[in-house]
């Protein structure tokens, strides 16, 4: 599957994008026509976005600020403003409450879903626009969003301005999250850029003379046609897409020496590769020596593989890797090992450190 095809698949496979577009359309309807139905759609979309993922929640914060400002500035009488705010925000706040309740009931901690972010302290150097891996159509779509924002301000069309701001806000939020190493990649947010820009430009065109509106509407249509017709346009223009190359390099540099080392100790050795970095390095293939673990447990590992020499391969807690559960469940494990189970350093392999799990004496 080509890169652009993969992006299209991700767009249609993810309800996040549906809700985002539906919420954006409802926001425009509410700002332009003050229809109660639009406010309910917006509230429903925002509550579902809260339950979807982190980037949805952060992008939603921008939409919530826009709605709140619009209601407070142009919402009518004080009582009506208050009622509109309650109807707009209550479902989202309820969804947040339910999410925290479920975290508390299942994981025993209401803030479990942000615990890794809080523990990691958002480390990592600023990355800049290059990390967004923007394609030419995404650049153009961002430009259309800015155009819609400017036209909305000039024509005093608040709905067009709000849509333009949301379209431009998508890469802005992506940059904010990627810069802090909180996002695996900007794709989930950038996928919505073109539909958002189309909506913004279409809304702005509605307030313009017919000829100018036709020219303006031709811009997103031409961009969409060019994106579909010329796949090479969707190749990233800024920043290398190096995940695959990095994984292949790490596989050779890390797994092969570790395999040789552990097999010299015992032919029955098992190595637990921790976290999402482990998923990338292992490539999802079954392996007789390497076992992937997103949520490692010493007790379960020693029960499941009783009698086997066990090893643990831990990535250095830098950037996003610092948010892995192995680092916040066992703080300082990379430098000092775990508290209750004796771990002997097996060796460093690039950014990975190998530990041997040794049963504590009874």
């Amino acid at each position: 599957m080509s890169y652009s095809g993969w992006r299209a698949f991700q767009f249609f496979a993810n309800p996040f994008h549906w809700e985002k577009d539906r919420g954006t359309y409802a926001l425009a309807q509410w700002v332009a026509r003050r229809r109660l139905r639009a406010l309910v759609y917006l509230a429903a979309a925002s509550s579902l976005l809260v339950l979807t993922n982190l980037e949805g929640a952060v992008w939603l914060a921008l939409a919530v600020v826009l709605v709140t400002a619009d209601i407070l500035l142009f919402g009518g009488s004080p009582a009506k403003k208050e009622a509109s705010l309650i109807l707009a925000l209550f479902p989202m706040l309820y969804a947040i409450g339910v999410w925290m309740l479920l975290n508390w009931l299942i994981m025993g901690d209401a803030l479990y879903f942000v615990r890794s972010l809080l523990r990691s302290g958002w480390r990592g150097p600023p990355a800049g626009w290059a990390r967004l891996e923007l394609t030419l159509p995404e650049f153009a779509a961002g430009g259309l969003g800015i155009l819609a924002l400017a036209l909305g301000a000039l024509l005093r069309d608040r709905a067009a301005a709000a849509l333009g701001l949301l379209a431009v806000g998508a890469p802005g939020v992506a940059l904010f999250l990627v810069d802090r190493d909180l996002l695996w990649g900007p794709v989930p947010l950038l996928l919505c850029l073109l539909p958002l820009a189309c909506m913004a430009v279409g809304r702005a065109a509605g307030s313009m003379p017919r000829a100018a509106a036709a020219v303006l509407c031709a811009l997103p249509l031409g961009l969409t046609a060019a994106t579909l017709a010329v796949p090479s346009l969707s190749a990233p223009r800024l920043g290398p897409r190096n995940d695959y190359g990095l994984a292949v390099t790490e596989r050779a540099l890390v797994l092969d020496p570790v395999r040789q080392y552990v097999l010299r100790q015992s032919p029955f050795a098992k190595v637990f590769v921790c976290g999402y970095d482990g998923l990338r390095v292992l490539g999802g293939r079954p392996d007789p020596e390497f076992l992937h673990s997103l949520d490692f447990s010493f007790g379960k590992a020693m029960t499941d593989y009783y009698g086997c020499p066990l090893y643990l391969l831990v990535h250095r807690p830098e950037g996003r890797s610092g948010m892995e559960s192995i680092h916040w469940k066992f703080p300082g494990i990379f430098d000092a090992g775990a508290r209750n189970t004796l771990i002997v350093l097996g060796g460093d392999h690039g950014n990975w450190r190998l530990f041997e799990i040794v049963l504590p004496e009874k």
Partner: protein
Amino acid sequence: MGAFCLFAGNFVFVYTGALGCYRRGYFDLVKYALLTPVYWC
């Protein structure tokens, strides 16, 4: 299914009450409509 009815069903009842107040123009009553579960108790 039971959890879904608990969380989604009760929310829909409460929100529908608030929507009714808004639709009828009783904006002052919208916030009190959120207290409907207290009345149920």
